[in-house]
């Protein structure tokens, strides 16, 4: 008897002739995720099997796979010889374990699949035969073919697989199959969620963070590194660019109209992020903006910010309420880190009454009145780069 993780994948099956490409990417990502646990990964008839995981690492492997995009669900299964009594023994053993849980339920159904057409019973016979044996052994259970609480699955292939759990995966597309984009990451709740959502659609991420040393603290910086690390649990390795932004902010504050400072700051951030993204081979930017959440995220402000760059800007949270974003942040485990109370570069220098309906012409004029090019070059030159995984 061997313990196996049986992995089902998502919409990859829609991909026609490109399907092998997506499958290979998924398997590579699974291998990376299971690094150190010596997995043997095989693809077979629309499923992926993970073998070779030791007993003590089994739940760790399962947990890691729930964060790999492209996986629809995972079943911890046992693989046994096709000898009928052995199959029954394995099934009863699994059911016994399952029934230890308080909320296991009392109804069940057997789902048999037989790809080995030479097997001495067909699927229907297996269902009846095994159902009977389960009822004999656990008289408190009953069969419910419509809405069973426990689904006991048996697959007869080159060997037999038995399982009764199906754990949901992270869904989405395998990371890396959709290309590369750069995430503008602050220390807040939204940007890590935005990064997670785009990685879920198959993007590889790099991340750009702006900081106002020395007016923001070392802890604020550690927090961003930690948030990036939490996103990388899903998105894989992320190259993080830490851009010193103090000189630019101070210049904006001293030379531009006060109420426009936030929007001009965001335009310059987008510009620098685009430069970094291009140098990285990324084709788009990602932000955590949500329509109307703050003054700089009104439609007018977004238009003005957008005008600063030519790359597409993905804003996966644009139609989300704060509560909805917070729910995702809690689910993916970034929330608790995001709410640590440190000043970040957007809060150190902030006008009391930022403009909510900036006019593009005025903003362009204000920005053009100051020559930022030298400062932008210097900021990019002094950017610190680290690989977070």
């Amino acid at each position, binding site marked *: 008897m061997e313990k196996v993780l049986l992995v089902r994948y998502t919409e990859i099956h829609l991909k026609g002739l490109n399907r092998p490409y997506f499958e290979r990417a998924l398997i590579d990502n699974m291998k990376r995720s299971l690094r150190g646990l010596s997995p043997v990964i095989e693809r077979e008839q629309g499923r992926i099997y993970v073998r070779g995981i030791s007993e003590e690492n089994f739940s760790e492997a399962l947990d890691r796979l729930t964060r790999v995009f492209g996986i629809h669900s995972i079943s911890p299964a046992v693989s046994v010889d096709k000898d009928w009594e052995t199959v029954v023994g394995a099934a009863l053993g699994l059911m016994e374990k399952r029934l230890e849980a308080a909320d296991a339920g009392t109804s069940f159904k057997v789902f048999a699949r037989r790809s080995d057409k030479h097997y001495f019973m067909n699927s229907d016979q297996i269902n009846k035969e095994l159902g009977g044996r389960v009822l004999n052994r656990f008289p408190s259970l009953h069969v419910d073919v419509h809405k069973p609480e426990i689904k006991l699955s048996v697959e007869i292939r080159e060997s037999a697989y038995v399982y009764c759990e199906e754990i949901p995966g992270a869904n989405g597309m395998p990371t890396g199959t959709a290309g590369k984009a750069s995430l503008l990451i602050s220390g807040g709740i939204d940007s890590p969620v935005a990064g997670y959502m785009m990685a879920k659609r198959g993007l590889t991420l790099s991340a750009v963070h702006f900081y106002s040393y*020395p007016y923001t603290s070392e802890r604020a910086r550690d927090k961003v590194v930690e948030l990036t690390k939490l996103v990388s649990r899903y998105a894989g390795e992320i190259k993080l660019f830490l851009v010193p932004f103090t000189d630019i902010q101070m210049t904006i504050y001293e030379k531009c109209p006060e109420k426009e400072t936030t929007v001009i700051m965001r335009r310059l951030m987008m510009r620098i992020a685009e430069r970094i993204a291009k140098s990285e081979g990324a084709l788009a930017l990602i932000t955590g903006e949500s329509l109307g959440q703050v003054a700089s995220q009104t439609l007018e402000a977004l238009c003005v910010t957008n005008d600063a760059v030519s790359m597409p800007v993905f804003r996966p949270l644009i139609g989300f309420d704060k509560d909805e974003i917070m729910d995702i942040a809690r689910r993916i485990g970034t929330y608790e880190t995001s*709410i640590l109370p440190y000043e970040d570069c957007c809060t150190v220098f902030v006008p009391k009454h930022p403009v909510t309906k900036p006019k593009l012409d005025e903003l362009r004029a204000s920005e053009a009145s100051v020559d930022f090019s030298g400062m932008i070059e210097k900021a990019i030159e002094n950017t610190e780069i680290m690989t977070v995984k």
Partner: protein
Amino acid sequence: MIYFDNSATTPCLPEAGAEALKYMTSGYFNPAAAYAPAVQTEREVNAARAAILSEISREPGDLIFTSCGTESNNTAIFGSLAAMRGKGRVIASGVEHPSVYEAAIALREQGYDVVFAPVDETGKVRLDGLAALINGETRLVSIMHVNNESGAVNDISAIRGLIKKASPDCLLHVDGVQAFMKMPPVPCDLYSVSGHKLHAPKGVGALYVKKGVKIRPYLVGGGQETGLRSGTTNVPGIMAFSFAVHDFAAHRDEYVSGMAEVKNRLYSNLSSIRDVKLNGPEPGSGAPHILNVSFMGVRGEVLLNALSERGLMVSTGSACAAHKRGRNRILNAMGILGERQDGAIRFSFSHFNTVAEADAAAGLIEEQVNLLRRFRRR
């Protein structure tokens, strides 16, 4: 580096560190063991106990060694109430350290009638306000000796007088973590101290328990500390603590006046910056080592970061509260709100600090305050 955050912790005296090392490497015996070297270690621990005790109180009592000020405060509050019958009123001031304040909140959930005494604008407990709260049902009053954020010194003798008049059986606990050795001893039933605020290593504290006061232990086990605090005796920490107390006692006047001089010098330098407000007692009347001022129009955390980069370490509030979001409970209670609260910085000194440091620090602060004020919210 200029270190003006001695209320958060102090550098360990090298000799105190050497003393700790000695009791880790050669005098390492468990004082509860039976053989002669262990008995010798036990004698030395007890001599340290007596020496520290004599600095806390002139009235008879015991000293329980603990792991820190928080444990001393928790033991004093929970332990003394658990040893009493029934539940009554518990009074603490509104500006206590979190290890007292949160304990009081927990007691309220347990069904005690917990009330908080008001303080004046310097952070000192108002005697009239306290007197109005003490009734015959009051079991415990917990008031800090020196406030860790403002440096206000409470009149513990007067507070004890109030208590004895209104509720003779009521106990008085005093959190002396910031005051110990720097202020003269005060009469009370329970007094908490901590080693690392006094140039001993972290990990050792103590609680004075006046003779006759009952404590129910929180940690049970081997029965160390006369059964009141089980756990293998922290001999290195205790011996280093004792060394630091001896050292302070031998140079008390010099150390205390030195800190006060640095504090006064810094304050007089800072007073020349416009829009600076003192939070707490006039420098002459507060504790010698704590100064809290607000730089109007500047955000404390931003100023702190800027000063840290230039080698000056200060605080925007108690290190135990600096991680908490939201407004400063202590300054709120003192009525220091809004822009003045946002701009508050605490400076705290030790005898290692010098007047030259105060001058250099004031220069850095003035430069940064002027710079940051250009970027204030207009």
